[in-house]
Protein backbone atom coordinates (compact mmCIF):
# COMPACT_ATOMS: atom_id res chain seq x y z
CA UNK A 1 0.00 0.00 0.00
CA UNK A 2 1.38 3.44 -0.93
CA UNK A 3 2.61 5.65 1.89
CA UNK A 4 0.19 8.49 2.58
CA UNK A 5 2.50 11.51 2.59
CA UNK A 6 1.21 14.99 3.31
CA UNK A 7 3.25 17.12 0.93
CA UNK A 8 1.43 20.31 1.94
CA UNK A 9 2.52 20.00 5.58
CA UNK A 10 5.04 22.65 6.63
CA UNK A 11 7.13 22.49 9.79
CA UNK A 12 5.56 23.87 12.95
CA UNK A 13 8.15 25.46 15.21
CA UNK A 14 8.94 27.81 18.09
CA UNK A 15 11.64 30.46 18.45
CA UNK A 16 12.98 32.37 21.44
CA UNK A 17 15.64 35.08 21.79
CA UNK A 18 18.12 33.39 24.11
CA UNK A 19 19.88 36.70 24.78
CA UNK A 20 16.82 38.33 26.32
CA UNK A 21 15.35 37.84 29.80
CA UNK A 22 11.68 38.79 30.11
CA UNK A 23 12.11 39.35 33.88
CA UNK A 24 13.73 42.71 33.23
CA UNK A 25 10.90 43.94 30.97
CA UNK A 26 8.37 46.53 32.14
CA UNK A 27 5.66 45.55 29.64
CA UNK A 28 5.10 42.06 28.24
CA UNK A 29 2.50 41.73 25.51
CA UNK A 30 1.32 38.98 23.20
CA UNK A 31 -0.40 38.76 19.85
CA UNK A 32 -2.31 35.68 18.70
CA UNK A 33 -3.13 35.32 15.02
CA UNK A 34 -5.60 32.49 14.45
CA UNK A 35 -5.65 32.20 10.68
CA UNK A 36 -7.62 29.85 8.48
CA UNK A 37 -4.61 27.60 7.89
CA UNK A 38 -1.94 28.56 10.46
CA UNK A 39 -1.88 30.14 13.92
CA UNK A 40 0.91 32.15 15.47
CA UNK A 41 1.60 33.51 18.94
CA UNK A 42 4.18 36.28 19.42
CA UNK A 43 5.47 37.47 22.79
CA UNK A 44 7.14 40.88 23.01
CA UNK A 45 9.11 42.30 25.92
CA UNK A 46 9.11 46.12 26.01
CA UNK A 47 8.17 46.21 22.32
CA UNK A 48 10.96 43.87 21.23
CA UNK A 49 10.43 40.42 19.77
CA UNK A 50 11.05 37.82 22.49
CA UNK A 51 9.43 34.53 21.43
CA UNK A 52 6.99 33.09 18.93
CA UNK A 53 5.31 29.90 17.82
CA UNK A 54 3.95 28.99 14.40
CA UNK A 55 1.50 26.11 14.26
CA UNK A 56 -1.26 24.61 12.12
CA UNK A 57 -4.83 25.79 12.81
CA UNK A 58 -7.11 22.93 13.76
CA UNK A 59 -10.88 22.67 13.57
CA UNK A 60 -11.32 24.59 16.84
CA UNK A 61 -10.09 28.22 17.06
CA UNK A 62 -9.74 28.36 20.89
CA UNK A 63 -7.68 25.15 20.84
CA UNK A 64 -5.47 26.54 18.08
CA UNK A 65 -4.94 29.76 20.06
CA UNK A 66 -4.06 27.75 23.17
CA UNK A 67 -1.65 25.55 21.22
CA UNK A 68 0.07 28.59 19.72
CA UNK A 69 0.52 30.43 23.02
CA UNK A 70 1.65 27.28 24.84
CA UNK A 71 4.27 26.77 22.14
CA UNK A 72 5.51 30.34 22.50
CA UNK A 73 5.59 30.17 26.31
CA UNK A 74 7.35 26.78 26.42
CA UNK A 75 10.79 26.98 27.96
CA UNK A 76 10.57 30.69 28.78
CA UNK A 77 9.36 30.40 32.38
CA UNK A 78 6.57 32.82 31.44
CA UNK A 79 2.91 32.11 32.13
CA UNK A 80 -0.21 33.82 30.78
CA UNK A 81 -0.47 35.72 34.09
CA UNK A 82 2.87 37.43 33.37
CA UNK A 83 1.56 38.91 30.13
CA UNK A 84 0.12 42.42 30.59
CA UNK A 85 -2.08 42.57 27.49
CA UNK A 86 -3.04 40.12 24.74
CA UNK A 87 -4.60 40.95 21.37
CA UNK A 88 -6.26 38.39 19.14
CA UNK A 89 -6.33 38.78 15.37
CA UNK A 90 -7.01 36.79 12.21
CA UNK A 91 -9.98 34.77 11.06
CA UNK A 92 -10.50 33.33 14.58
CA UNK A 93 -9.73 36.52 16.51
CA UNK A 94 -13.02 36.61 18.40
CA UNK A 95 -12.41 33.04 19.60
CA UNK A 96 -9.15 33.61 21.47
CA UNK A 97 -10.32 32.88 25.03
CA UNK A 98 -7.51 34.72 26.85
CA UNK A 99 -7.32 37.85 24.62
CA UNK A 100 -8.19 41.26 26.06
CA UNK A 101 -9.15 42.69 22.66
CA UNK A 102 -9.59 41.65 19.02
CA UNK A 103 -8.10 43.72 16.19
CA UNK A 104 -8.53 42.98 12.47
CA UNK A 105 -5.71 41.21 10.68
CA UNK A 106 -5.53 44.05 8.15
CA UNK A 107 -4.46 46.55 10.83
CA UNK A 108 -2.17 43.97 12.47
CA UNK A 109 -0.37 43.01 9.25
CA UNK A 110 0.29 46.67 8.47
CA UNK A 111 1.69 47.23 11.97
CA UNK A 112 3.73 44.02 11.82
CA UNK A 113 5.15 44.84 8.38
CA UNK A 114 6.09 48.31 9.63
CA UNK A 115 8.06 46.67 12.47
CA UNK A 116 9.66 44.01 10.26
CA UNK A 117 10.41 46.05 7.15
CA UNK A 118 10.79 49.56 8.61
CA UNK A 119 8.81 52.79 8.57
CA UNK A 120 9.37 53.26 4.82
CA UNK A 121 7.04 50.34 3.97
CA UNK A 122 3.96 51.67 2.17
CA UNK A 123 2.43 48.66 0.41
CA UNK A 124 1.85 45.28 1.99
CA UNK A 125 0.65 42.13 0.32
CA UNK A 126 -0.58 39.54 2.80
CA UNK A 127 -0.83 36.17 1.11
CA UNK A 128 -2.70 34.21 3.72
CA UNK A 129 -3.95 30.65 3.89
CA UNK A 130 -7.38 31.35 2.45
CA UNK A 131 -7.38 35.01 1.52
CA UNK A 132 -5.23 37.69 0.03
CA UNK A 133 -4.97 41.35 1.05
CA UNK A 134 -3.40 44.42 -0.52
CA UNK A 135 -2.77 47.12 2.11
CA UNK A 136 -1.37 50.64 2.06
CA UNK A 137 -0.06 52.14 5.29
CA UNK A 138 1.63 55.30 6.56
CA UNK A 139 4.99 55.65 8.30
CA UNK A 140 3.49 54.48 11.60
CA UNK A 141 1.99 51.34 10.10
CA UNK A 142 -1.57 52.74 10.16
CA UNK A 143 -3.74 51.45 7.32
CA UNK A 144 -4.64 54.06 4.67
CA UNK A 145 -6.21 51.77 2.06
CA UNK A 146 -6.99 48.08 1.84
CA UNK A 147 -8.62 45.56 -0.41
CA UNK A 148 -8.99 41.88 0.32
CA UNK A 149 -10.32 38.85 -1.46
CA UNK A 150 -11.46 35.93 0.62
CA UNK A 151 -14.07 34.50 -1.68
CA UNK A 152 -11.70 32.59 -3.89
CA UNK A 153 -8.73 30.36 -3.03
CA UNK A 154 -6.74 31.38 -6.13
CA UNK A 155 -3.71 33.31 -4.91
CA UNK A 156 -3.72 31.81 -1.42
CA UNK A 157 -1.58 29.41 0.55
CA UNK A 158 -4.24 26.73 0.49
CA UNK A 159 -4.19 26.81 -3.31
CA UNK A 160 -0.44 26.17 -3.26
CA UNK A 161 -0.91 23.32 -0.78
CA UNK A 162 -3.44 21.67 -3.11
CA UNK A 163 -0.93 21.86 -5.96
CA UNK A 164 1.95 20.53 -3.80
CA UNK A 165 -0.17 17.52 -2.83
CA UNK A 166 -1.26 16.86 -6.41
CA UNK A 167 2.31 16.95 -7.72
CA UNK A 168 3.74 15.18 -4.65
CA UNK A 169 6.27 17.94 -4.04
CA UNK A 170 7.01 19.11 -0.46
CA UNK A 171 5.56 22.60 -0.08
CA UNK A 172 8.94 24.02 0.94
CA UNK A 173 10.51 22.90 -2.37
CA UNK A 174 7.84 24.28 -4.69
CA UNK A 175 9.54 27.65 -5.23
CA UNK A 176 12.98 26.32 -6.17
CA UNK A 177 11.59 23.53 -8.36
CA UNK A 178 9.42 25.98 -10.29
CA UNK A 179 12.59 27.58 -11.70
CA UNK A 180 13.95 24.31 -13.06
CA UNK A 181 12.37 24.91 -16.48
CA UNK A 182 14.01 25.78 -19.78
CA UNK A 183 11.49 28.49 -20.54
CA UNK A 184 8.57 30.00 -18.64
CA UNK A 185 5.31 28.18 -19.54
CA UNK A 186 2.00 30.05 -19.89
CA UNK A 187 0.16 30.33 -16.55
CA UNK A 188 -2.64 27.92 -15.64
CA UNK A 189 -6.10 29.17 -14.61
CA UNK A 190 -5.77 32.05 -12.17
CA UNK A 191 -9.41 32.33 -11.24
CA UNK A 192 -10.10 29.07 -9.43
CA UNK A 193 -7.98 26.48 -7.59
CA UNK A 194 -10.35 23.66 -8.53
CA UNK A 195 -10.04 24.51 -12.24
CA UNK A 196 -6.28 25.04 -11.87
CA UNK A 197 -5.97 21.56 -10.35
CA UNK A 198 -7.95 19.99 -13.23
CA UNK A 199 -5.81 21.91 -15.69
CA UNK A 200 -2.60 20.75 -13.98
CA UNK A 201 -3.76 17.12 -14.17
CA UNK A 202 -4.42 17.53 -17.90
CA UNK A 203 -0.97 19.05 -18.40
CA UNK A 204 0.66 16.11 -16.58
CA UNK A 205 -1.23 13.73 -18.86
CA UNK A 206 0.11 15.72 -21.80
CA UNK A 207 3.63 14.95 -20.62
CA UNK A 208 4.52 18.17 -18.78
CA UNK A 209 7.11 17.72 -16.02
CA UNK A 210 6.16 18.63 -12.45
CA UNK A 211 8.59 21.55 -12.55
CA UNK A 212 6.84 23.02 -15.58
CA UNK A 213 3.39 22.65 -13.99
CA UNK A 214 4.69 24.31 -10.82
CA UNK A 215 6.12 27.16 -12.88
CA UNK A 216 2.74 27.59 -14.59
CA UNK A 217 0.92 27.62 -11.23
CA UNK A 218 3.38 29.99 -9.50
CA UNK A 219 3.05 32.29 -12.50
CA UNK A 220 -0.77 32.17 -12.32
CA UNK A 221 -0.68 32.95 -8.61
CA UNK A 222 1.68 35.89 -9.14
CA UNK A 223 -0.62 37.22 -11.87
CA UNK A 224 -3.67 36.85 -9.66
CA UNK A 225 -2.24 38.78 -6.71
CA UNK A 226 -0.67 41.41 -8.93
CA UNK A 227 -4.18 42.24 -10.22
CA UNK A 228 -5.32 42.81 -6.62
CA UNK A 229 -2.26 44.97 -5.94
CA UNK A 230 -2.73 46.94 -9.16
CA UNK A 231 -6.26 47.84 -8.12
CA UNK A 232 -4.96 49.72 -5.05
CA UNK A 233 -1.61 50.66 -6.63
CA UNK A 234 1.88 49.66 -5.54
CA UNK A 235 3.76 52.32 -3.62
CA UNK A 236 7.34 51.62 -2.62
CA UNK A 237 8.52 50.22 -0.39
CA UNK A 238 6.74 46.95 -0.81
CA UNK A 239 6.55 44.08 1.71
CA UNK A 240 5.02 40.60 1.55
CA UNK A 241 3.64 38.80 4.60
CA UNK A 242 2.11 35.35 5.02
CA UNK A 243 3.37 31.90 4.16
CA UNK A 244 3.61 32.46 0.39
CA UNK A 245 6.29 35.10 1.05
CA UNK A 246 8.60 32.10 1.63
CA UNK A 247 7.92 30.77 -1.88
CA UNK A 248 10.45 32.37 -4.24
CA UNK A 249 8.62 30.86 -7.20
CA UNK A 250 5.71 33.24 -6.57
CA UNK A 251 7.64 36.16 -5.05
CA UNK A 252 10.19 36.51 -7.86
CA UNK A 253 7.55 36.17 -10.58
CA UNK A 254 5.41 38.76 -8.79
CA UNK A 255 8.36 41.15 -8.48
CA UNK A 256 8.98 40.76 -12.20
CA UNK A 257 5.32 41.40 -13.06
CA UNK A 258 5.15 44.49 -10.81
CA UNK A 259 8.64 45.75 -11.61
CA UNK A 260 9.23 46.25 -7.87
CA UNK A 261 11.46 44.32 -5.48
CA UNK A 262 9.95 43.31 -2.14
CA UNK A 263 11.80 44.20 1.07
CA UNK A 264 13.13 41.04 2.73
CA UNK A 265 13.81 40.42 6.45
CA UNK A 266 15.15 37.56 8.53
CA UNK A 267 11.96 37.44 10.62
CA UNK A 268 9.46 34.77 9.57
CA UNK A 269 6.91 36.43 7.28
CA UNK A 270 4.14 34.24 8.71
CA UNK A 271 4.25 35.97 12.12
CA UNK A 272 3.55 39.50 10.80
CA UNK A 273 -0.09 39.48 11.94
CA UNK A 274 0.66 38.19 15.45
CA UNK A 275 3.59 40.58 15.72
CA UNK A 276 1.33 43.49 14.80
CA UNK A 277 -1.21 42.27 17.36
CA UNK A 278 1.47 42.23 20.07
CA UNK A 279 2.43 45.81 19.12
CA UNK A 280 -1.24 46.85 19.31
CA UNK A 281 -1.37 45.15 22.74
CA UNK A 282 1.52 47.32 23.97
CA UNK A 283 -0.18 50.52 22.79
CA UNK A 284 -3.50 49.48 24.32
CA UNK A 285 -1.87 48.55 27.63
CA UNK A 286 -0.06 51.89 27.78
CA UNK A 287 -3.36 53.69 27.07
CA UNK A 288 -5.04 51.70 29.83
CA UNK A 289 -2.23 52.58 32.26
CA UNK A 290 -2.41 56.26 31.36
CA UNK A 291 -6.18 56.26 31.95
CA UNK A 292 -5.86 54.58 35.35
CA UNK A 293 -3.22 57.14 36.45
CA UNK A 294 -5.44 60.02 35.30
Amino acid at each position, binding site marked *: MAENKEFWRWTEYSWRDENKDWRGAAIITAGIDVGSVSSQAVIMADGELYAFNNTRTGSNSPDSANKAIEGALAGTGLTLENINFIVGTGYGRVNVPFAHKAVTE*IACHARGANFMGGSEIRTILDMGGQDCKAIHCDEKGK*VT*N*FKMNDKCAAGTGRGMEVMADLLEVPITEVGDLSFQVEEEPPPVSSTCVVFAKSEAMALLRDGWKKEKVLAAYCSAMAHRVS*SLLDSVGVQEKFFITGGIAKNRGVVERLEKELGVKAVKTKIDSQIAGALGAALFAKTLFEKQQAKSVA
Partner: protein
Amino acid sequence: MIANYGYTDGSGEYYIAINTDDCLECPQHLCVNACPKNIIEIIEDDYDDLVAAVKDESRKALKYICADCKPSSERPPLPCVSACPNGSLSHTW
Protein backbone atom coordinates in the same frame (compact mmCIF):
# COMPACT_ATOMS: atom_id res chain seq x y z
CA MET B 1 -8.52 55.12 5.26
CA ILE B 2 -10.05 53.80 2.07
CA ALA B 3 -11.78 50.57 3.00
CA ASN B 4 -12.75 48.31 0.09
CA TYR B 5 -15.40 45.81 1.12
CA GLY B 6 -16.28 43.03 -1.29
CA TYR B 7 -14.61 40.42 -3.41
CA THR B 8 -13.33 39.31 -6.78
CA ASP B 9 -14.54 36.09 -8.33
CA GLY B 10 -14.59 34.50 -11.75
CA SER B 11 -17.35 36.86 -12.90
CA GLY B 12 -15.79 40.16 -11.88
CA GLU B 13 -14.86 42.59 -9.14
CA TYR B 14 -17.49 43.73 -6.64
CA TYR B 15 -16.28 46.25 -4.08
CA ILE B 16 -17.84 49.14 -2.19
CA ALA B 17 -15.13 51.66 -1.33
CA ILE B 18 -15.58 53.96 1.66
CA ASN B 19 -13.19 56.76 2.54
CA THR B 20 -13.55 56.50 6.30
CA ASP B 21 -11.58 59.71 7.00
CA ASP B 22 -14.65 61.60 5.75
CA CYS B 23 -16.99 59.66 8.07
CA LEU B 24 -15.37 61.46 11.02
CA GLU B 25 -16.76 64.76 9.74
CA CYS B 26 -20.23 63.31 9.10
CA PRO B 27 -22.09 62.58 12.33
CA GLN B 28 -25.40 61.99 10.50
CA HIS B 29 -24.17 58.80 8.75
CA LEU B 30 -26.87 59.23 6.09
CA CYS B 31 -25.61 56.25 4.08
CA VAL B 32 -26.81 53.83 6.77
CA ASN B 33 -30.49 54.70 6.36
CA ALA B 34 -30.22 55.30 2.62
CA CYS B 35 -29.39 51.68 1.78
CA PRO B 36 -32.66 49.83 1.03
CA LYS B 37 -30.95 46.51 1.79
CA ASN B 38 -29.59 47.73 5.13
CA ILE B 39 -26.05 46.53 4.48
CA ILE B 40 -24.19 49.58 5.85
CA GLU B 41 -23.48 50.02 9.54
CA ILE B 42 -21.40 52.25 11.80
CA ILE B 43 -18.54 50.46 13.53
CA GLU B 44 -15.67 51.41 15.80
CA ASP B 45 -12.60 50.65 13.69
CA ASP B 46 -9.18 49.45 14.88
CA TYR B 47 -8.14 53.04 15.54
CA ASP B 48 -11.20 53.78 17.76
CA ASP B 49 -12.98 55.91 15.13
CA LEU B 50 -16.70 55.57 14.36
CA VAL B 51 -16.91 54.93 10.63
CA ALA B 52 -19.25 53.44 8.03
CA ALA B 53 -18.63 49.85 6.93
CA VAL B 54 -20.38 47.17 4.90
CA LYS B 55 -21.82 44.53 7.22
CA ASP B 56 -19.68 41.43 7.45
CA GLU B 57 -22.46 39.07 6.39
CA SER B 58 -23.07 41.06 3.19
CA ARG B 59 -19.49 41.45 1.97
CA LYS B 60 -19.36 38.24 -0.05
CA ALA B 61 -22.70 38.69 -1.81
CA LEU B 62 -22.65 42.33 -2.98
CA LYS B 63 -23.22 41.45 -6.62
CA TYR B 64 -26.60 39.98 -5.69
CA ILE B 65 -27.60 42.24 -2.78
CA CYS B 66 -26.97 45.46 -4.72
CA ALA B 67 -28.54 44.16 -7.93
CA ASP B 68 -31.95 45.78 -7.25
CA CYS B 69 -30.33 49.23 -7.19
CA LYS B 70 -28.55 48.53 -10.48
CA PRO B 71 -31.08 47.83 -13.24
CA SER B 72 -29.45 47.12 -16.58
CA SER B 73 -31.08 50.16 -18.23
CA GLU B 74 -32.03 53.65 -16.99
CA ARG B 75 -30.02 53.12 -13.83
CA PRO B 76 -30.90 55.75 -11.19
CA PRO B 77 -28.22 57.20 -8.90
CA LEU B 78 -27.28 54.69 -6.20
CA PRO B 79 -29.01 55.65 -2.90
CA CYS B 80 -25.92 55.05 -0.74
CA VAL B 81 -23.64 57.03 -3.05
CA SER B 82 -26.14 59.91 -3.35
CA ALA B 83 -26.70 60.07 0.40
CA CYS B 84 -23.05 60.63 1.29
CA PRO B 85 -22.55 64.43 1.56
CA ASN B 86 -18.77 64.04 1.10
CA GLY B 87 -18.92 61.78 -1.96
CA SER B 88 -16.89 59.22 -0.05
CA LEU B 89 -18.69 56.10 -1.11
CA SER B 90 -18.35 54.38 -4.48
CA HIS B 91 -18.97 51.05 -6.19
CA THR B 92 -16.49 49.36 -8.51
CA TRP B 93 -19.14 47.79 -10.76
